[in-house]
């Protein structure tokens, strides 16, 4: 094995060694997960600034923060190389999960700040709401416009991924229908013959 020439290479070499060792071991199927760096605190603040624009006003500030926290956790807990199973009646296995979509986020966070600086603001977070909205619209209407909300993050657009994360959630469906359906929750059968209770809270 070549001698490490600096700390970075040393770390990388160590990771490569660990990857090879784990892959060769009986625990190899566990694979190495989460090579993508987590969303930083500063990026989390940016996400909150995005959330204020793209989520409905009926979602309270506390709930917005919870949604951002859940999105950050989604990124943190993403597993590369996970078993994605097989479709119904399909004779082929789905490809294992690829690199985390979040690997493409740092550049997009940076682009939002760059756009803010070009507009004379210190950062995206420092911009007023209308300016943030304009920046978000510009990002989604850009040269490669985003037309659909992804059911799961894809990495193509940080903003669309975040929006899809919320708007495809059980909570968002409840808000849209103004009813406590609780699609993704395990619930009792009792009372299911009645229309779901109306929403009694903001989200």
């Amino acid at each position, binding site marked *: 094995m070549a001698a490490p020439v600096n700390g970075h290479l040393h770390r990388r070499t160590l990771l490569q060694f660990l990857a090879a060792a784990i892959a060769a071991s009986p625990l190899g199927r566990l694979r190495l997960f989460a090579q993508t760096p987590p969303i930083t605190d500063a990026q989390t603040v940016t996400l909150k600034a995005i959330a204020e624009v793209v989520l409905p006003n*009926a979602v309270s500030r506390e709930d917005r923060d919870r949604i951002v926290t859940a999105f950050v956790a989604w990124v943190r807990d993403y597993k590369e190389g996970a078993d994605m199973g097989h479709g*119904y009646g399909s*004779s082929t296995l789905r490809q294992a999960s690829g690199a985390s979509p979040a690997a493409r986020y740092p550049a997009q966070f940076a682009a939002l700040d760059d756009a803010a600086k070009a507009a004379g603001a210190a950062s995206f977070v420092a911009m007023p709401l209308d300016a943030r909205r304009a920046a978000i619209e510009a990002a989604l209407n850009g040269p490669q416009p985003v037309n659909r909300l992804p059911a799961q993050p894809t990495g193509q657009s940080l903003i669309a991924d975040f929006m899809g994360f919320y708007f495809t959630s059980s909570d968002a469906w409840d808000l849209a229908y103004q009813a406590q359906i609780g699609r993704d929750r395990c619930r009792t059968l009792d009372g299911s013959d009645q229309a779901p209770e109306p929403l009694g809270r903001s989200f």
Partner: protein
Amino acid sequence: MARYEADVVIIGGGITAAMVAEKLFELRPNWSLIVVEAGKRLFDFENRFEYRQRSLDYGENQWPGDFVADQAARGVVSRTMAVGGSALHWGGVCNRFSEEDTRLKSLYGLAADWPIEWKELERFYCEAERRLGVSGEQSPLPEDWRSEPYPMPAMTMSYNLKQLKSWAEHSGIKFWTTPQAKNTVEGYGGRGRCRRCNTCEICPTGARYSPDWTFKQLLAAKKLQLHDQTLVRKLVLDERTPRIASAQAVREDGADNNVEYRARTFVLASGYCWSPHLLLLSASSRFPNGLANSSDHVGRYMTGHLAYQTTIDLDLKIFPGMNDQHSLISREFFRCRPDRSYVRHDLRVWENAGGRGPQLRDAEGKLLLGDALMADWRKRTTRGTARVRGYFDVHPDRDSRLTLDTAAKNRWGDSLPVIQHRIDAASQARQAATREHLQGVFTQLAKAGDGRMGNVGALNYQDHPAGGCRMGSDPATSVVNTFGRTHDHENLFVVGSPTLPTGGCTNGTLTFVALALRSVEEIAK
């Protein structure tokens, strides 16, 4: 080399094997029994909420590792290979076939009659429902008589289904709820009550029957040995008789490439794909076309059913997600008068979220954010959508086949199976009329609610596949007799889906489990 001996060796660890093992030990508690399964045992019930959640959040496999990487086939074949088999993932639907399915030849001059009387089969339907734990609602049609009530009351009809039933019955067609192997009472079979998790593919509460549950109970009571990760590659004949002497197997983890099982009786319960596959793989100089195949019928008459489906947009307030795997069924079209053009099908209705979800852009392509997006979305929530599907009866051609694919081999050098479904000439000839009929039924339903029908789509594969070792009275045209005993080898049984001569027009699990339970009474003699 490991060598094991038992009174009965069951090859395969799916729902049929679970039912056979359970009943066999009730009838013959002193017999020794080994179940051999190529896949793993996934018994970590305590992790199922986590698996469910990761499936929802990341799309990961709800049953991680439920396959054997190089044990694959071409054609309509589920990759699930684990203790529990495809029934780990199933939705639990437990429809019965109808008497017509067993008398196609004598009533309509089509396909083949089954070598069993309906009254006899009905008795085992009741037993299958008890063992699986089926909750259901009695059909209002007299032809759907039953000798016992369902073991559990029907699943609560959700608000959505009540709305949909009210609409659908305006069409003049009667609907009721679909029977399911899901607990509607606490504790049936030692399992919990359904909690409407909407993820029946992995039921985190155990309310939906899953064969791993039976195996765990049998193992806990020390009633059998379960050898998982053990692939049976060949059945070997006795040197002087046509009896099966042994099953040759390998450990999937490489721990032993030479495992032998000896038994008085062998029961092949490996499903419609891997059962005929093993018989073909077991060819020898005395049986060059494979075992149980003197009729050249192993791997033939591979069957199933096709479907047409559509969505209907309705002026109904539906709340998608209340219990979206529960459905309505009508069995009115299970019967066809012999003097009419032949068409038989089931008819199912589900709540549906199609077209009701959030959109990033409005109809003009304008970007929507926040309240604007929500306002646009809410406009779509004022109406509802029904998903409607009819499985219809088609019959297999003799050359609807499973064969060995000499170009594809597993790591042990065994040829893998390829399945090519082919419907018979009569089924082909009536396809246009069947489509016209089902389109008419869908239109009738849509009109009843002033609904707008979407495109009618055809299923492009045969669902609920079966066949490949069909049962019959004549050894020249079938592989097994009415009890699943092979005509060629008196100590070899094939049970479950491979034995079905035809695939009916609704989900087949309850039917092949019922047939397998009937087989056990013969196996136990």
